């Protein structure tokens, strides 16, 4: 008995206004209420057990499928840069904006609310270069999957993402962009709209350019933030390697401009300028015209998509004469100080061979043979070489084999088969002045590099390898092998120098520098005969002769006009390229030359 109750006992008599006897609250009734609560709790217990024990795996699987996100592979490719890291090809991330009007909902709205298309369009029109009315028209009455916009840059995309509107979807995609326009199209090629490589290095080095991407499953929050659990290592590591080319964008641009000027001037079909490092075969310039802009490739004829300088053959003509003389020197059939009697005309196997100007030059030494580009002199000089030996040499130079190069589509030159070559003396004679066989401009540049570097056959190439800014993971291998003695090539170089000093190559003479060169004006072989109107004008130079580093080759196909010669068409282009190269590579003038 409590104190309270005792106290009540004392007050008991005061019970006057009781009408109905007071019933104390029954414990049964209180217990009943408690029981109801117990039933509720028990019911929940069962429900929770059902959800968390029996249906847990199913519900969890559903939840995970909502929460996990499969990273898309965009098929990203490495950037291509020139030898100094200037961008040539790069992937740009862009976005397509999709609308699903039946899920339109602003942040903070009740989740079941659906915003009108107009409300969303109004918000979007502030960010997109489209008025509300245009957006409304694009969306129309469709409820889902409407493409509103394409080509959004990442900045705009993140602005739209920040609006937080449900029912808008930004789909990322990559676009290959070629910031240099047409400058490298002939080498690099392009990707089509489906990002399938169609030409050039993009095609030949496709495997190396593709960045290996794996699809990952990653859990993320509803706003897209990835969550740090179960992440594989290296998930966010980015492959930063780029494809470095040996090409130099500035030299390439300069060369292309110079070439374009002469091609336009002479109304030529096409032209190419090649600059090669003679010591390692790195190509600094491979400028070709006409060409195309890879960013708008669909506007051009597919004929332009292949690089003709490595795929088309031509008969080199006079630019091959120094190579022939080198072979003769190597074999000892001529002496460096020897002379030939140029009579202006010679008969071989019933065919008459003339000098290009039909003039007789008399008894001349070999530098003079090159300076006047004497065909008769060449035929006489080479005549002592046995035809089979000559053919072997041409074969050894690799005229009829596919060159080892990373340039896509490079083809072998064309040489008559040995039997024909040996049995017809005219073959021997025409080969002496660079006709009767054909090669690519690239091959010709390689052979002149051999003269320039002391007799080594280099591997012409345009790629340096895959590297990040400080590491190299793949490098083009440089293998050289010796074909000629260094003294032989040195003699030839001095003869070629005389061509620039006194002969047809005068146009590239540069004060303070020693440059060797040889012009060529060859008739084009058409259907087995020669087309008198169609010429190929070329010029090849190597310099600086104190320590040869570069070969410059310019070839222009079918320049029109009476005065179209190697010296008039190709030399001016080479002159501009050499000037540019001297500045860009900071080549010092020749001490010897300055003294004299």
């Amino acid at each position, binding site marked *: 008995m409590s104190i309270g109750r005792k106290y009540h006992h004392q007050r008991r008599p005061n019970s006057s206004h009781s009408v109905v006897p007071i019933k104390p609250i029954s414990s049964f009734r209180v217990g009943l209420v408690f029981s109801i609560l117990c039933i509720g709790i028990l019911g929940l217990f069962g429900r929770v057990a059902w959800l968390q024990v029996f249906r847990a795996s199913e519900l*969890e699987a559903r939840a995970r499928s909502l929460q996990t996100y499969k990273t898309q592979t965009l098929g990203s490719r490495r950037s291509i840069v020139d030898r100094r890291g200037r961008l040539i090809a790069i992937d740009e991330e862009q976005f397509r904006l999709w609308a699903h009007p039946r899920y339109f909902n602003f942040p903070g709205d009740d989740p079941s609310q659906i915003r009108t298309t107009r409300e969303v369009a109004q918000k979007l029109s502030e960010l997109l270069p489209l008025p509300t009315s245009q957006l409304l028209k694009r969306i129309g009455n469709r409820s889902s999957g409407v493409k509103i916009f394409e080509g959004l840059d990442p900045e705009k995309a993140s602005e739209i993402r920040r609006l937080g509107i449900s029912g808008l979807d930004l789909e990322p995609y990559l676009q290959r962009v070629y910031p240099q326009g047409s400058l490298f199209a002939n080498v690099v090629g392009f990707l089509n709209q489906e990002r399938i490589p169609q030409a050039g290095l993009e095609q030949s080095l496709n495997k190396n350019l593709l960045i290996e991407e794996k699809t990952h499953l990653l859990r993320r929050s509803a706003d897209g933030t990835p969550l740090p659990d179960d992440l594989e290592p290296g998930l966010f590591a980015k492959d930063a390697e780029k494809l470095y080319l040996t090409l130099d964008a500035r030299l390439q641009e300069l060369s292309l401009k110079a070439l374009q000027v002469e091609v336009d001037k002479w109304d030529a079909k096409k032209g190419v300028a090649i600059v090669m490092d003679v010591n390692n075969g790195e190509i600094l310039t491979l400028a070709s015209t006409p060409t195309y802009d890879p960013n708008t490739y669909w506007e051009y004829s597919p004929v332009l998509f292949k690089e003709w300088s490595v795929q088309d053959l031509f008969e080199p003509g006079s630019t091959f004469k120094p190579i022939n003389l080198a072979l003769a020197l190597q074999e000892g059939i001529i002496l460096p100080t020897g002379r030939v009697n140029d009579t202006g005309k010679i008969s071989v196997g019933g065919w008459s061979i003339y000098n290009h100007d039909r003039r007789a030059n008399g008894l001349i030494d070999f530098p003079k043979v090159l300076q006047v580009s004497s065909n008769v002199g060449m035929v006489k000089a080479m005549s002592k070489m046995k035809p089979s030996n000559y053919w072997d040499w041409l074969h050894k130079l690799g005229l009829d084999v596919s060159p080892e190069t990373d340039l896509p589509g490079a083809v072998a030159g064309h040489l008559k088969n040995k039997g024909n070559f040996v049995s017809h003396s005219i073959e021997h004679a025409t080969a002496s002045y660079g006709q009767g066989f054909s090669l690519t401009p690239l091959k010709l540049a390689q052979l002149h590099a051999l003269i320039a570097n002391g007799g080594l056959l280099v591997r012409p190439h345009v790629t340096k390898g895959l590297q990040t800014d400080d590491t190299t993971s793949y490098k083009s291998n440089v293998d050289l092998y010796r074909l000629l003695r260094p003294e032989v090539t040195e003699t030839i170089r001095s003869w070629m120098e005389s061509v620039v000093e006194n002969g047809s190559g005068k146009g590239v003479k540069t004060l303070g520098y020693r440059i060797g060169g040889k012009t060529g004006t060859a008739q084009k072989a058409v259907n087995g005969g020669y087309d008198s109107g169609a010429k190929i004008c070329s010029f090849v130079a190597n310099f600086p002769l104190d320590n040869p580093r570069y070969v410059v080759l310019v070839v222009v196909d079918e320049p029109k006009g009476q005065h179209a010669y190697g010296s008039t068409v190709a030399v001016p282009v080479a002159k501009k390229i050499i000037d540019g190269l001297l500045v860009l590579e900071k080549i010092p003038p020749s001490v010897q030359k300055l003294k004299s």
Partner: protein
Amino acid sequence: MKPNKHRISESNKNGLTNRQLNKARVHFWDKLLPMPWELWPSESRLLLALIGFWSLAGLLILGSASWWVASREMNDGAYYLKRQVIWLIASWSILYLSISTNLRQWLKLAGPGLLIGWLLVGATLIIGTQVNGASRWLIIGSLQIQPSELIKPFIILQAANLFSYWRRIKIDQKLFWLSIYISLILLILKQPNLSTAALTGIILWLIGLAGGVRFISLFLTGSIGLLLGTISILVNDYQRLRVISFLDPWKDPLGNGYQLVQSLLAIGSGGWFGEGYGLSTQKLQYLPIQSTDFIYAVFAEEFGFIGSAMLLSFLLLIAFLGLRVALRCTNNQAKLIAIGSSTILVGQAIMNISVATGMIPTTGLPLPMVSYGGNSLISSLLISGLLIRCSLESTGLIGGFHINKIPSKKIE
């Protein structure tokens, strides 16, 4: 002349000597307590400890549930947590106040309190602020008042007044207060706030059940209540959609069923042992209103079935303690306050969890002490205080009623 703590030495039922009592009063905190700590019955002590645990655990759960969203939407992960802490301090002051105040005092306040609350709920319909399609809020300066929450203690108190001597109260009194209650429920329904209206009705019905109202009347009122609820649902589009979606949430998991589906996914993801504290994925903006109505889903995902079972056991313990206190109380009002208080706390929790688990239609009812919201906290802790006060007064050492009409024999 009434008993109070200064007169306890007079009789000593608990077997304590005067010296012991005097010694007990030496502690300075005893001066702050309505009754010396040594004299607190075990239910009171346990209840105080459990309520303390409940509010701290609630704070931790809220912290986990709200951090991500707060850091996204408010640029401060602790945004809701900080405000909840301030409200919690305020609410514990209210709990202290309710423990220190005589039940008689509370019962006197009940009528006016209920009427003021009634007016405020009415005011929300006129000048209320809409949140999620319902006008439940009155904004006074920087304070947001939710009268339908704050009125809850007074609903219990006045119901205790009404039902403790149900058979003796004059018919006009009965009619007046019943009409106040019914109109209150209608007003809350009008907001619309089906869940609070339903909770109010259910609590009144249960207090009536405890208070000894005839079963036939209870049956009739219960049926009328259900009918009322059904009509409300049918009339109100917003509620009808929710009921339909509750029946089959997977039918439209991105539309009307969205909230429930996300909640079920969260609860199911918890499995046996849960993802671990703080590691819910569904709370990362998949689950809507994760800091209030669906906070249980976050808890269930993080603590699993084990955690849910512990929470339900905890609720059972509170309900049981409420029963014990009610049985130990010596007068009808206190009994009803005790059973009403424990029932509203536990019942509200049951309804909240039922919503999250999809047992009843989605309605916005906070989980007491856990959900974010100052009004709910104040009301819950005031009710908890009333329950503890009932337990304290059940000792007969403090408080006291003029219930002199009851023959002592009948009480025994």
